[in-house]
């Protein structure tokens, strides 16, 4: 980023997709107004932006799209605070601002030639979608060995990206384990159980494997020991964190864990790194 790092690039909402049955999650497809801004915007899955609505504020959102999907960005947004509530009521064609890319990314270079296990829970699957799409792209697929996805939500209607998940199910170059906490649908063809339990059942071989983990704190808490018991080294358990942010560039002072800022030193950390830091996140 050159110039003023606080100045958002103007962008237009091109499409809004309602993701979940409770309508609390929507995906916003966003296109830069100025072509040059889009061309200069290069990122890797795991990074985030500050998405800005004039008059409401800015929020950090991880890119749900992969850099292999050209010409737009996707942000999947949970309706939670002032900005996201407003965003949920916006329409296609409305103007937003996008500032980024910010933060670090999943350790793509280190993961080359390795197995990758993607573990997500609830609406925290956004940058994990980006990561999976990125790895499954024909240009990238051969860079990685086995790819496994474990993804769960409270109920079938709360899973994000349902159509894509079903497409992945059909592919033979990725193993997908979908799960829900509970369902009253007798036709539900996938797993029932919490993400840590399904991870324990399905993920046994950890040789040369990385795990990318993103989810609510309770899921992270119970998945970590499962992975460690399965033999994953803390250096290879990769966790993407959330934190309240304002500037996104390591200056405003609120998103620190010890001497690290989640916005610039993260949002992606290895468990080994987190074990060295104060447990305050």
């Amino acid at each position, binding site marked *: 980023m050159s110039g003023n790092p606080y100045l958002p690039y103007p962008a237009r909402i091109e499409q809004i997709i309602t993701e979940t049955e409770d309508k609390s999650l929507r995906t916003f497809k966003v296109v830069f107004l100025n072509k040059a801004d889009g061309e200069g915007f290069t990122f890797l899955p795991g990074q985030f932006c500050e998405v800005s609505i*004039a008059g409401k504020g800015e929020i950090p959102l991880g890119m749900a799209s992969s850099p292999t999907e050209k010409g737009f960005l996707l942000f999947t947004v949970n309706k939670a605070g002032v900005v996201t509530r407003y965003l949920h009521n916006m329409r296609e064609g409305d103007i937003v*601002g996008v500032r980024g890319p910010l933060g670090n990314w999943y350790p793509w270079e280190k993961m080359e030639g390795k197995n990758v296990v993607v573990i997500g829970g609830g609406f925290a699957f956004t940058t994990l979608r980006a990561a999976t799409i990125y790895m499954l792209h024909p240009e990238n697929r051969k860079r990685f060995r086995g790819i496994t996805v474990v993804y769960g939500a409270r109920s079938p209607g709360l899973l994000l990206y349902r159509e894509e998940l079903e497409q992945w199910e059909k592919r033979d170059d990725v193993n997908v384990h979908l799960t829900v906490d509970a369902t009253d649908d007798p036709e539900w063809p996938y797993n029932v159980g919490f993400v840590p339990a399904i991870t324990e059942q399905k993920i046994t071989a950890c040789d040369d494997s990385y795990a990318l983990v993103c989810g609510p704190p309770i899921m992270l808490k119970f998945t970590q020991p499962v992975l460690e018991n399965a033999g994953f080294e803390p250096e290879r358990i990769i966790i993407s964190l*959330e934190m*309240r942010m304002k500037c996104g560039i*390591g200056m405003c002072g609120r998103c620190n864990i010890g001497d690290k800022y989640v916005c610039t030193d993260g949002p992606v950390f290895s468990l080994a790194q987190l074990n060295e830091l104060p447990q305050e996140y």
Partner: protein
Amino acid sequence: MTCPMTDKIFKKREFGGFLRALKKTYEVLVPFKEQGFYRFKPIADGEGADLRFTNTRLSPKSFVLPQSERMFEFTVDEKIEDAHILKEATRAYPPTAIVGIRPCDAKAMRLVDVNFNNPEFRDPWWVTRLNSITLVGLGCTEPCSTCFCTSVNCGPFHEEGLDVLLFDLEEYLLARPLTEKGKGLLQSGGVERDADEGSRNKAHKLRREAEQRITRHVPTDKLAQKNVNDLFDAPFWDDVAFACINCGTCTFLCPTCWCFDIQDEVIRAEGDRIRNWDSCMFPLFTLHASGHNPRAEKVQRVRQRFMHKLKYYVDKHKNGVACVGCGRCVRYCPVNIDIREVFRLMNEL
């Protein structure tokens, strides 16, 4: 030919004339007494400055990082083509001189500068404003009881961050230029006479005596080597935080506290994006939209303030502690929380 950075000297009663001369080139800020407390204010015509202060109650940080500052402006009027697109607010950065700043407050600006001006990102407003300011320090001949600058790589005549350092030799002021900017300021102020050796010796003596007058020594030597989690999990935090009422006075007054918030404000169809000072003492500082708060408890917030200054900053910037020993937080804390005691607890854990 004179050496480029020669000490200069002028009569104290010429100080008013010096300020008036500076006013032709600079906006001049000087300490004034107002409602019982000193603060820096722009000098008005015909006024002098009052240099009989120990320090101002508010640190002069607001002249580089305003308490409230417009970042961008925008309109939400749909009839206008650029509606909802943020534009940089126009602003001026006139050359400004802060005359009489204490050395601790100048050093604080250097400590904060590493946050706003780093290899990855540059805060354009901080950087431009700091560049536009010339700092004319006034050495402290009578440090107060809460000063502990000599313990934290600072001192009553510390030069770091200053452009000029003034020594109060009673009848005369000795002016030591420290940077090209400072040299230029002295020229603008008409200060041309070189100091004689006798005056320079007096200045040296003044500095030594002032340093000796600061008797309170605060230990800091072991902070860098300490394990961060040992300090974080130390048993003393509950006691340190017990009386705290989370009022935020310490962060408000501290010359090295820089945390800020960003908010949008709209009146009718015209809006501004504004940044305001914020404080780690407030629970909202870290509250997530989900309701989760990593520092929901008072003790966590008090610990954050001290850990940031005395450990996280030390580890991150390898630049010493983020404290200059000005003693404001000690003096104005309504419940007498004393950072000098926290230094000791942390250093001696």
